[in-house]
């Protein structure tokens, strides 16, 4: 009996040790679910390597903590562009060779197929996501807001607003709401007067703002009736709108878009499998699969050749993507260099402004 117990434990131990697994850390909510359906499950089906999804409010923090503590349990992480660049510079991420990325489904080599800026030293882009604002159509039966300026108009559209708690994407949005065209936003924000202007604009609605931090909070507070309009990651609103049938409407004016990157933390336990996973997830097929679950624009041109249909079988994804031409009329690409540089200082100012009440 004792011998059997020891033998079976040893065998189980060996089996566990031999099993290579890919652990992916992402943002949870409907985005994490989309990645699970679009990348993780098909990858396991195709290669037989088991995959696991781990949720986080912002994967950049735990990744850095793990690498510094020399105890990395995650193989792949999904990061914002600026974080991917910053952590790569700090040596927290593993450089990824473009050669491992497969060509597009139409034969174009990876380096031409990916949209400009989609491949960096340590990261490969999976999608282009955007911070937009959405409103509850039932609260505005006579027509809701249509421009970024409307977000800051408390007389025409009374009610509380939701904003992401942090300077990034909030200061730019405030300037666009104040009438600065997208092409000039970072020039204005680079000056002290521009920053004062952004905070002054935010002051006009400060008492009516509910601050959210996790991606899933934004559609939640909109659904609860806590706010009448809120900024949010566009895919989360899409999921609430289409998959759950909520009466939300996205306003694309003043959208701020950027690339989402898959990265590999230094010291990842399953490095080769992690690279295989990224190569698969960012192939044309992988990108299209994710785009069928959430409305973030695929980072490869070849992924858009054929029309994308949502997993309900009938909704066309194209008009819901941030990169759809109609949605790009007053769109701003988030400037990673600006934020890598001034993140600390502007967030300090933002926190002081917020706490001052």
């Amino acid at each position, binding site marked *: 009996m004792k011998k059997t117990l020891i033998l079976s434990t040893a065998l189980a131990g060996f089996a566990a040790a031999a099993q290579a697994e890919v652990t992916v850390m992402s943002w949870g909510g409907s985005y994490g679910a989309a990645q699970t359906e679009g990348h993780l499950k098909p990858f396991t089906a195709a290669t037989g390597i088991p995959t696991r999804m781990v949720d986080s409010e912002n994967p950049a923090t735990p990744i850095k903590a793990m690498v510094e503590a020399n105890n990395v349990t995650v193989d792949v992480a999904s990061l914002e562009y600026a974080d991917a660049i910053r952590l790569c*510079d700090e040596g927290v991420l593993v450089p990824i060779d473009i050669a491992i990325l497969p060509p597009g489904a139409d034969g174009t080599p990876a380096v031409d197929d990916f949209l400009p800026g989609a491949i960096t030293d340590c990261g490969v882009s999976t999608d282009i996501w955007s911070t937009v604002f959405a409103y509850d159509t039932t609260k505005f039966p006579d027509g809701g807001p249509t421009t970024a300026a409307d977000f800051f108009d408390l007389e025409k559209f009374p009610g509380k607003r939701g904003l992401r708690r942090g300077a990034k994407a909030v200061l730019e949005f405030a300037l666009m709401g104040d009438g600065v065209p997208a092409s000039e936003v970072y020039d204005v924000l680079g000056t002290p007067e521009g920053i004062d202007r952004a905070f002054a604009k935010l002051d006009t609605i400060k008492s009516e*703002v509910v601050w959210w931090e996790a991606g899933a909070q934004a559609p939640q507070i909109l659904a609860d009736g806590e706010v009448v309009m809120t900024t949010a990651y566009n895919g989360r609103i899409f999921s609430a709108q289409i998959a759950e049938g909520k009466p939300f409407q996205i306003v694309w004016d003043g959208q701020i878009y950027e690339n989402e990157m898959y990265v590999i933390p230094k010291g990842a336990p399953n490095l080769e499998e992690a690279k295989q996973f990224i190569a698969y997830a960012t192939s044309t097929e992988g990108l299209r699969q994710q785009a069928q679950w959430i409305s973030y624009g695929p980072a490869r041109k070849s992924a858009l050749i054929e029309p994308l249909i949502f997993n309900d079988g009938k909704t066309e994804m194209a008009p819901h993507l941030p990169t759809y031409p109609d949605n790009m009329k007053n769109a701003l690409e988030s400037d990673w260099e600006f934020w*890598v*540089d001034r993140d600390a200082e502007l*967030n300090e*100012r933002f926190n002081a402004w917020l*706490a*001052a009440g």
Partner: protein
Amino acid sequence: MAQLLTTADGRPLAEALAQAQAKSRRRAFLLVVPLLLFVLVSFVLPIGQMLHRSVYHDGFSANAPALVAWFAANPAGTEPDEAAFAALTEDLRGMQANRTAGEAGTRVNYILSESRSMFTRAAREAGDLVPPYRDAFEALDPRWVQPAVWQAMRSSSSAYTTDFYVVSADFQRADDGSLVRVPENRQIYIYLFVKTFLLSGLITLICLLIGFPVAHLLATLPMAKANLLMILVLLPFWTSLLVRTTSWMALLQGEGVINDLLVWIGAVAEDGRLRMINNQTGTIIVMTHILLPFMILPLYSVMRVIPPSYARAARSLGATSWTTFRRIYLPQTLPGIGAGSLLVFILAVGYYITPALVGGADGQLFSNMIAFHMDNSNWSMAAALSAMLLVGVLILYWLYDRLVGIDRLKLG
């Protein structure tokens, strides 16, 4: 004639006694050693590491050896000469080779905003620079010849630094190295520090006012009823913190249960719904609820052993209810009040989750700032703020010891 007392085998009694006592003390110490080691490893070492991090950051000093040498050789205030710029070029080339420009730039960026991109850009161009280096850098970016950058680099050139504490106290270094207050719109840490302690004090007081009658009731009721009420206190205590916080969100929000009830009975108008969440009120309400058992339980266990005969004796001597309470009952519960208040206060001061979820903008506490800096990978800053909190709590603990006495603490 004074005779020295001896033991049976002739040794002086005092010596034999001291030896025996030392032996038993050693034995007692050995029994405690495992616990001591545990506390050392799980408490003292990590806190020590954190405190070390708050004064140590080698992002720049480890990657710019030539500049560190120049700064050591030239006192503060020296204008950077050609040798300084040559050292800068050498170090930037090294950073480019080792991919450490970002790390070094980040360290300097903590002091002077926008220096990170200066470093990464300069590192990329460093290979092509030719002497005279001062002019080359001036052409690259005029900020390189300004004193602010050199002051920031000098500050970063030592791995051991007080910069993070300077920022935590809402100060910054001027170009000549002196300390000057940060502009008004960026002063946040001291304000939040004071606010955290005040708010925690308020929450402790509210917990005391609510918890005292409840504990008294629990202590004086007959066993059966007391046990039932005790379950009502313990069940929420054992429920997950997040579950309790989110159920408060459902109760307190604009369209939540309480507001709907008040509107239904007509106490408030439809558009005058009470704002009880995402603000300071929300923080106070939810934190009071969560910390209440920590006040009730110590109070209860102290009150249970207070003999009712004292109060009866006081009444029989003619004291009014209020006098009996004030002069007989209350002083006996003081150890419990002390224990409960200390427990609630220290927990409240370090609380992070509840203010993060229900505090909104003006319900944020100091620990939210610490969490914010952790999120932004600025661990040294988070460590400095944590150290401030630790010192604040230790000072209060010392004050408490002086005024009330730690020996008078009773948890049961």
